[in-house]
């Protein structure tokens, strides 16, 4: 029983990492209706910016806020400079651009800050609650839930949030309503980048900071987002926790899976959920009449 509880709690803790990344994935999906394969690298790059600020003596929460502002602007600029010119290009061009961005950021971070791993401080106290879950992990879960609440309020109760959903779903109709779709997309990129940066800053103290830190995590983030329903931020967070817990339990109790096959488990989970419920566990099924 104690082993079980241990695994559940540590699953929740890793799950909050996936949840943070999944939230960014959902955010970009809501804005542009597809994935951004360079999302993890954008988060990693912003985390390095935070590290550099801290290294220069900036107090933690100031660095945290400056990094969020940087990440937001970074996302907007990438959209304006790189993806807006491609906006009517075929999907393949987008994928190439994502890949290009991926390698530029990955190598760029390595070139600026080199590839050695760096310890990243946590804003939360050290220690844990009876060895089950550390204060950093609790803090992480809290921050993810706060971000979720903010997003919920933004999309549900503000007219910019409504305009953004409209622009993603039906750009032509959105323009006819007077919405500047181009700016909505840029705003979505900015927000996704900022959310990713928060995730990165919280993940780095756990996995250490280095240019490849997001590789596996982004896959889990995709898994969580898809399991939870790609257009549903709350579903994505729930999906993140589920993937985290499941991965731990499977790794512990099903001997041949161990820690090597855990990633495979995540992928199998995606496929299984998509087969049973194509819109994700918490996604809304769209019914369309013509």
């Amino acid at each position, binding site marked *: 029983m104690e082993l079980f509880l241990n695994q559940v709690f540590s699953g929740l803790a890793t799950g909050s990492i996936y949840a943070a990344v999944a939230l960014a994935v959902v955010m970009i999906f809501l804005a542009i209706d597809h994935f951004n394969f360079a999302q993890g690298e954008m988060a990693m790059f912003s985390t390095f910016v935070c590290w550099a600020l801290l290294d220069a003596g900036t107090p933690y929460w100031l660095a945290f806020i400056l990094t969020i502002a940087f990440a937001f602007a970074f996302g907007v600029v990438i959209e304006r400079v790189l993806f807006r010119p491609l906006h009517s290009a075929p999907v393949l061009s987008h994928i190439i651009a994502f890949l290009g961005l991926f390698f530029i950021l990955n190598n760029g971070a390595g070139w600026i800050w080199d590839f050695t791993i760096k310890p990243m401080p946590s804003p939360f106290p050290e220690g844990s609650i009876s060895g089950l879950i550390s204060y950093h992990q609790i803090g992480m879960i809290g921050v993810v839930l706060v971000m979720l609440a903010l997003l919920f309020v933004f999309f549900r109760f503000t007219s910019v949030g409504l305009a953004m959903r409209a622009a993603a779903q039906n750009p032509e109709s959105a323009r006819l309503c007077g919405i500047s*779709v181009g700016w909505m997309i840029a705003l979505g990129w900015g927000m996704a980048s900022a959310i990713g940066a928060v995730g990165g800053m919280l993940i780095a103290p756990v996995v250490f900071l280095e240019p490849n830190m997001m590789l596996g995590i982004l896959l889990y983030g995709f898994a969580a987002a898809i399991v939870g329903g790609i257009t549903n931020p709350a579903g994505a967070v729930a999906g993140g926790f589920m993937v985290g817990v499941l991965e731990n339990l499977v790794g512990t109790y099903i001997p041949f899976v161990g820690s090597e096959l855990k990633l495979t488990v995540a992928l199998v989970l995606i496929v299984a959920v998509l087969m049973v419920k194509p819109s994700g566990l918490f996604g809304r099924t769209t019914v369309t009449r013509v």
Partner: protein
Amino acid sequence: MAALLEVADLSAYYGPTKVLHGISFSLDEGGITTILGANGAGKTTTLRALCGMVRSVGQVTLGGEAITGLATESVAKRGVAHVPEGRGTFTRLSTEENLRLGAISRRDRDGVEADLERMYGYFPRLRERRQQQAGTLSGGEQQMLAIARALMLRPRLMLLDEPSFGLAPLIVQEMFRILRRINEEEKVSMLLVEQNAALALDLADTAYLLETGRVAMSGPAKEIVADEQVRRSYLGY
């Protein structure tokens, strides 16, 4: 009456293909003008050209201001509400969210709330379905929603692209009655594109006949409806 919309020598292109060949027409403030024509004549393209949705050249003037070449959203912000072909429903949003989107460029919150009630007054079915995903509404309900969404902009000019398309005759009659009422009560000018010529000529005061991207005939709706050739080709009697 002063002209609200003046269009001079408007041409439009899909890629290299020219589909509108320099058409000119005008629409009086408070009036209803209809553009008739067979399938493929260029009616939809005309409306799209006015809203900057296709590449076009020519002069378009709205209330004295040139709006040629403006972005679609800027045309909307100048008070032109377009009920597009295919209705343009935001299928994954609720009925009420669809309506609020129509008013999203407005800043008068109280006015928007009042207009929402007004729309539910015009279209009680929409009130019943206000929290429902708009994609689940019937064709007729989605057409009502499209018209109501356009009205939420408080437009000076409404562009309607075949609002009768695919709807049962009774629903079409109901809809045209509401359009007439909106025109009379709220002085919204309308540019109505229709294949259903009889209905359109009954509602409109002025009519233009479009044939392969050119204006083939124009005049007061009463005269057009009496024209022998129009009767034979478009009215079927």
